[in-house]
């Protein structure tokens, strides 16, 4: 029944959406004549009600799908494909948008919600545009609902109810994947709002005010897209296991392209609101943003773009293509008919070397970037048509084409605050010349000292330093100026500055974030490092200053997958850093395997370890080691970027409590994200110490023996010490006790001491075990697991033989035999 009601709701939504468009259109025409104005208002009121109803209908449909997942309604085919009884609740929720049908339903709901909010709660400035905007928004919603209802039903039933679902695609079981699609959709759907209002502005010839009218919506959409892209990058980095975060895959580009045009629109809007023109440009940007959104959805669902990311070739391609064509052609035609009004409105821009000029450059560059990435994504088709041979644009192509453009953009970020309007412009540049030159010099020098010496990267660092210095100077200057007036403490001044000029300083924060991200991109792209290495258990290998010891291979069974991982201790020189546990998971439901990388983040780079393969006896394993230089600047920059966007979005509030709450919530979110990235372990475990290498000094410890005495390892210098970690609850440890006793009796008095360290055990059980096995060598309890941590114990039993000079001579993991002990001791005693 759940499924049937859901389908009915979607069908009803289609009817309501079409009615909304009609009602709004009718209302507009009736309002034109004074006699029928009141009737017109009634129709518009009805349209608004219909918009609200549409939101409710689609919301309930989405809720029903969610409920179906939470209650394991496997008779619904979509639920059976993406869920199972064993996956945790939070993953069941994100499974709702794991596939095409569900994600389309989410899209429809968001579309209706945004339409209702944008038209129902429109600002004063926006209100005249609302009727026509309603028409366009409801038509868009109708299109997506029609596609969902006729071509991509989420609620189709299976003829037989399976007992268990297929389970969520393991690649999607990552927190990033829970938020990545919704964030992206907020961006995609959100861009429909500026588009609708822009078209309304064109039709009613009120072309000056529209950017200000929907400023908040444009910002929300832009930020949503940005968040979606960042989450996607982090997900790729954590989960896909190839060491990178962006592959210039056409599906990735599909999200990037509208983000470019939306950024251009944001900047153009600033100019338009300051009465400095850019009207035509903004119109074009909004049209192309929306068209690229449709194009993006189309590209991922048709066979037109070869990509391993794409959805299977589906029947939706043609319909989206038609929609794109209609949108672009219609909008451009409308633009053409209003060209006179647009030309009147445009102001003239004066100097290229001014703030306006910088905005012009910004828009121009984002346009060329959009074009470049579009050409790159379509290169096979284009080259086949023009050159007769299909070429494909790989990452190298994209880096080469977009790299210089990004570099110039960063330069513009730095120049813009320095160039005011007119003559004052150069004065400011002169005032700050030392600051910006300093930035442009310090950063490359620091980088070069840290080992980054490639010339092009140094140029990139210089530009970034310059831009960063210029942007930071804006903050400092703002605080100083304010303090001159109000004499506040610097921090107070900063707080008020941020509070009162949210758009300006939010924008500067975003710029700072972008500059940091640029540093990360330069590091990872220009200093790639990757190596494959095969190691035996217990062996060490050195990579770029890190020493990696593959200790052992382990296996376990969790929920619906089998996991195998390797314990790899990581040292820098002699200092223990962490133990990485790269793993391979084999899922029983879908027969899929995924590699889960382990990484150790650092300011300078990330050590990224992947378990590739192993022999069946676990004695040898192959690893892929990737060093990602400066990658954490990318993530840090991303957080600052989001913080800036959030600040820009925050409405003007005089209420201190609300502002305070917002600040705290924002900080908590940022800290939470930071903790998720750098605080949480990504496959790394800190055992307090790695297993000491053969040849290294054995860590000193003090062991309280059962007979009351305390012995320290240091005091045993000059003798051979056999240190055995064991416990009574461990069967293999118990098995080896007779062997140990035998060896003790044979070698005691020949300069050999045995020490038994009981791990997580109790005195009574230990004592009785000693009695049972006639163990006479000294044994003590390792209270607080202190000694185990020093020796990097990951399991028991483990035996260490320490030579008379205090260095580790032999390590044995697992139960040891008397014969093996004898052999080792004999060779040491020679």
């Amino acid at each position, binding site marked *: 029944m759940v499924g049937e009601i859901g389908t009915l*709701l979607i069908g009803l939504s289609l009817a309501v959406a079409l009615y909304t468009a009609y009602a709004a259109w009718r209302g507009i025409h009736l309002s034109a004549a004074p*006699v029928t104005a009141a009737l017109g208002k009634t129709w518009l009121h*009805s349209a608004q009600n219909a918009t*609200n*109803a549409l939101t409710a209908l689609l919301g309930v449909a989405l809720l029903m799908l969610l409920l179906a997942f939470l209650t394991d309604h496997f008779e619904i085919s979509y639920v059976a494909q993406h869920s199972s009884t064993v996956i945790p609740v939070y993953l069941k929720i994100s499974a709702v948008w794991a596939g095409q049908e569900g994600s389309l339903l989410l899209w429809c709901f968001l579309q209706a919600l945004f339409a209702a909010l944008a038209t129902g709660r429109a600002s004063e400035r926006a209100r005249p545009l609302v009727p026509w905007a309603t028409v366009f928004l409801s038509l868009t919603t109708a299109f997506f609902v029609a596609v969902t209802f006729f071509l991509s039903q989420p609620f189709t039933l299976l003829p037989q109810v399976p007992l268990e679902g297929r389970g969520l695609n393991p690649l999607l079981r990552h927190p990033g994947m829970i938020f990545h699609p919704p964030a992206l959709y907020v961006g995609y759907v959100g861009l429909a709002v500026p588009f609708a209002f822009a078209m309304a502005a064109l039709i009613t010839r009120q072309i000056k005010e529209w950017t200000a009218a929907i400023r908040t919506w444009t910002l929300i959409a832009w930020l949503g897209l940005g968040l979606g892209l960042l989450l996607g990058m982090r997900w790729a980095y954590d989960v896909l296991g190839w060491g990178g975060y962006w592959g210039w895959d056409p599906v990735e580009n599909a999200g990037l392209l509208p983000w470019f045009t939306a950024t251009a629109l944001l900047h153009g809007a600033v100019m338009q609101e300051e009465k400095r023109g850019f009207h035509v440009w903004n119109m074009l940007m909004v049209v192309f943003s929306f068209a690229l959104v449709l194009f993006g959805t189309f590209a991922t669902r048709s066979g037109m773009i070869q990509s391993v990311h794409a959805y299977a070739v589906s029947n939706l391609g043609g319909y989206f293509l038609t929609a794109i064509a209609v949108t672009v052609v219609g909008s451009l035609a409308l633009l053409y008919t209003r060209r006179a009004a647009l030309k009147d409105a445009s102001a003239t821009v004066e100097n290229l070397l001014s703030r306006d000029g910088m905005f012009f450059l910004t828009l121009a560059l984002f346009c060329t970037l959009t074009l470049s990435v579009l050409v790159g994504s379509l290169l096979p088709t284009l080259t086949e048509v023009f050159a007769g041979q299909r070429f494909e644009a790989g990452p190298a192509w994209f880096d080469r084409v977009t790299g210089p453009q990004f570099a110039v953009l960063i330069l513009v970020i730095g120049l813009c605050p320095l160039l005011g309007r007119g003559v004052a412009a150069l004065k400011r540049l002169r005032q700050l010349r030392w600051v910006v030159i300093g930035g442009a010099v310090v950063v490359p020098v620091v980088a070069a000292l840290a080992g980054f010496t490639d010339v092009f990267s140094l140029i990139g660092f210089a530009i970034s330093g310059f831009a960063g210095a210029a942007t930071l100077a804006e903050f400092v200057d703002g605080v100083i100026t304010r303090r001159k007036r109000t004499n506040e403490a610097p921090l107070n001044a900063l707080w008020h500055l941020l509070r009162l000029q949210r758009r300006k300083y939010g924008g500067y924060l975003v710029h700072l974030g972008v500059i940091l991200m640029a540093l990360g991109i330069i590091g990872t792209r220009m200093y790639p490092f990757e190596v494959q290495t095969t190691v035996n258990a217990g062996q060490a290998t050195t990579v770029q200053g890190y020493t990696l010891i593959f200790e052992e291979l382990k296996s376990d069974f969790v929920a619906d997958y089998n996991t195998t991982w390797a314990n790899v201790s990581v040292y820098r020189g002699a200092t223990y850093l962490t133990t990485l546990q790269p793993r391979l998971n084999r899922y029983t439901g879908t027969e899929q395997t995924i590699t889960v990388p382990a990484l150790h983040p650092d300011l300078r780079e990330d050590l990224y370890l992947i378990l590739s393969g192993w022999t069946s006896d676990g004695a040898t394993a192959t690893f892929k080691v990737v060093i990602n230089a400066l990658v954490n600047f990318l993530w840090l920059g991303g957080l600052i970027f989001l913080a800036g966007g959030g600040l820009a979005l925050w409405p003007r509030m005089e209420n201190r409590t609300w502002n305070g709450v917002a600040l705290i919530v924002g900080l908590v979110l940022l800290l939470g994200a930071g903790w998720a990235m750098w605080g949480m372990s990504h496959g790394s475990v800190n055992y307090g110490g790695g297993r000491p290498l053969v040849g290294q000094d054995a860590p000193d410890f003090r062991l309280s023996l059962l007979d009351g005495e305390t012995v320290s390892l240091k005091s045993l210098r000059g003798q051979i010490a056999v240190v055995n970690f064991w416990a009574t609850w461990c069967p293999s440890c118990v098995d080896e006790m007779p062997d140990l006793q035998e060896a003790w009796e044979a070698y005691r008095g020949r300069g050999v001491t045995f020490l038994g360290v009981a791990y997580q055990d109790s005195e009574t059980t230990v004592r009785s075990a000693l009695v049972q096995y006639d163990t006479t060598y000294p044994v003590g309890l390792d209270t607080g697991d202190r000694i185990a941590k020093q020796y990097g114990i990951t399991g028991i039993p483990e035996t260490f033989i320490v030579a008379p000079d205090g260095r580790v001579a032999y390590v044995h993991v697992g139960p040891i035999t008397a014969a093996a002990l004898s052999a080792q001791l004999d060779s040491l005693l020679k």
Partner: protein
Amino acid sequence: MSLGSIFVGLAIAVMVIAYIVRPFRTASGAAAARTDKLIEAWVRAAPGATPGAKDTDAPVSVAVPAPTVAATPIIVPQVAPPSAAALSAAVNFCPQCGRRVTADYRFCPGCGALLPHEEGASSGDVA
């Protein structure tokens, strides 16, 4: 399609439709009366409204100008704007529907068309 689903679906549809047509039902009463009053106010809002003709209950039709107005001195230079009496006295026809109107009407009470006015007062932009 189970019966239960059909019932629930119908119930939801009915509720939604009721909500959507609500404005039409509430509007028809109050809004119509308001519209009538508005039209009347416009129609009567010529410069210097005729006193005595302010009877709002009277049907809005071509009214015979009140004879009391004749008491006001009409000896005015020609440059002065036509007095209310003059306006009330002049009879025009609506260019759109042909109805008889007097010059002090700005809008035709029959078809709502804007009546051409010497003083050039425009209807004002509904910006």
